[in-house]
């Protein structure tokens, strides 16, 4: 191929470009480092494609407006970082129960509290999973390069629309602010999923929460369906019900629509896992240090495999379990003090030792640190 569309791009910029390629037409948010460029570039780009940007008064409002935008029919996104992600949780839970597709980008920074605004971390992995009250499934993706940020943002929109759910895109500051040359794919090569909408014939008895479907069809406000949406437990028409049976049916459908489609949702990459004595599991920016350390270790004859989770949640349980049977040790490398580690340990501990290479001082994990850890184990 000749006319390659090559661009030097920052991670946060690639996220916006990916979102636009996926059809984003609405962005509402509140600035916070290190996610701010996502808002700034969206503000610049959206009106040019007939979309809308609004800077709300806080993150709670940003999340609420994002949900509103989606309900009015536009593909919607918001972006934030740790403290803002905490504020958004109330309305994230709302979107989960009311099944409103949208993308929530979290460019993680050091925490807790306002913590380290400009330092990288992967400290919100568990917040993504358990940040809200109540049970609901979570889809969270995490890229480790600029091109992957572009691709996974598109994927985040596709999964949101397909499963009628908020989807998290978990960047870390390393990826958000790094620049890399990427090749922008031709729009005709990108697969786009748009929400399934009801047709005219369904107007008189439209069930916004039809339990006979795994993912109910979604109408937009203003199209003539006049439905009700509530954050209370609801029946198939969307009206409040506190009947245990109704709640059980709704909850099991919401959990099931993700759990029954793991094949479609789970994305991960493996390197050298065919023949290995040790496995390192990593994700996001940390993967880059892991990979360079592992290449180094391979050169000195050490057999180290790498598992890179691109889908953080749902957890790639089946595959991690299989891999844990092939080795004596798994190292989990992450920029926190052991969030994903506990999940890996829970799955793998019966088959092998699981240890943590964790760091939460605002500096990324270096290849040297990974090599040192490899030498400790092997």
């Amino acid at each position, binding site marked *: 191929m000749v006319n390659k569309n090559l661009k030097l791009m920052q991670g946060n910029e690639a996220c916006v470009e990916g979102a636009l390629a996926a059809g984003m037409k609405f962005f509402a948010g509140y600035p916070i480092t290190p996610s701010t460029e996502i808002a700034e570039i969206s503000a610049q780009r959206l009106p040019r494609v007939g979309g809308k940007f609004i800077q709300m008064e806080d993150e709670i409002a940003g999340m609420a407006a994002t949900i509103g935008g989606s309900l009015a029919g536009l593909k919607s996104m918001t972006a934030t970082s740790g403290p803002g992600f905490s504020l958004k949780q109330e309305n994230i839970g709302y979107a989960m129960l009311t099944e409103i597709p949208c993308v929530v980008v979290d460019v993680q920074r050091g925490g807790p509290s306002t913590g380290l605004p400009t330092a990288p971390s992967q400290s919100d992995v568990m917040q993504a999973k358990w940040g809200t009250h109540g049970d609901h499934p979570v889809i969270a993706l995490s890229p480790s390069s600029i091109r992957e940020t572009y691709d996974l943002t598109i994927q985040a929109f596709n999964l949101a629309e397909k499963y009628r759910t908020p989807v998290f895109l978990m960047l870390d500051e390393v990826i958000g602010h790094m620049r890399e040359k990427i090749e922008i794919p031709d729009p005709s090569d990108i697969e786009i999923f748009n929400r399934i909408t009801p047709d005219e014939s369904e107007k008189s008895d439209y069930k916004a929460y039809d339990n006979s479907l795994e993912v109910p069809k979604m109408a937009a406000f203003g199209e003539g369906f006049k439905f009700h949406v*509530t954050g209370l437990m609801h029946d198939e028409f969307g009206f409040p019900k506190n009947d245990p049976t109704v709640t059980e049916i709704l909850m099991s459908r919401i959990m099931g629509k993700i759990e029954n489609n793991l094949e479609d949702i789970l994305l991960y990459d493996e390197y050298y896992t065919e023949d290995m004595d040790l496995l390192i599991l990593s994700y996001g920016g940390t993967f880059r240090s892991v990979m360079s350390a592992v290449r180094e270790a391979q050169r000195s004859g050490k057999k180290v495999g790498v598992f890179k989770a691109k889908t953080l949640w749902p957890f790639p349980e089946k595959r991690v379990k299989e891999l844990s049977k092939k080795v004596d040790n798994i190292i989990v490398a992450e920029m926190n003090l052991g969030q994903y580690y506990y999940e890996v340990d829970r799955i793998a501990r019966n088959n092998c030792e699981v240890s943590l290479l964790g760091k939460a001082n605002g500096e990324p994990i270096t290849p040297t640190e990974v090599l040192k850890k490899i030498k400790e184990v092997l």
Partner: protein
Amino acid sequence: MAVASKLLENNFRMNRLPHIWCPGCGHGIIMRGIAEAIENLGYDKQKVCIISGIGCSSRAPGYMDFNTLHTTHGRALAFATGVKLANPDLKVIVVSGDGDATAIGGNHLIHAARRNIDITTIVFNNNIYGMTGGQYSPTTPHNDLGTTAPYGNVDNVFDICRLAEGAGATYVARGTVYHAKQLEKNIESALENKGFSLVEGVSICPTYYGRKNRKGDAAEMMINLKETTLDKKVAAKLPAEKKEGKLIIGEFVNKAQPEFCEEYHKIVDKFTKGD
């Protein structure tokens, strides 16, 4: 004026009625006022969207046959801002309680007003948190009782209308459930204003506020509303001592100013309308 049954048929989800408000609650009167206003103005019902937060008042959208959204406590205006900006063809109405709108949702209220986004907000002000059982709200009068103000409320009150005006609302009015017809007219004017409009509907909660503060039953509370309010126009002609302690009702602001979605669309149009 539409007769009640037609009004019900045209605007309400008959299978969702009767409502769950307590006997004597004032909220139903304001809900009816909203329906009457929509009916009188002849809006396309497919294009009307009613959004609420959480509270007794916020239950209203569930009964009304439009695009309806029952959101999180205090956040209705933030959801509504997203809906309106995403689809400015929708007629967006927010229904909120005094606590919902001015305590937890106070920040969203002042900023929606500041933007002058075309949303009509109706605040059902019963001076108390009804749904959670009678705790004091930002509009509970100083020294009045609430379950969390057992020795009298120490807080001072918000004047919701002055708050909205100060923040930039381009239509502001206050009515009461006793003066139902006037309230309905205010809601109509608010809906017709292109910009952020707020109507404070002073309501009654005989169950909590009334009982706790010995205000009598619903009928007595209604009479009290009548006796303690003064129309703005009447008040203008009275000496100060005659206005003391009275609540002024009527239209306070009604002015034309650039509206947020229209202003934003000018930017969009610049890029998308080729000439």
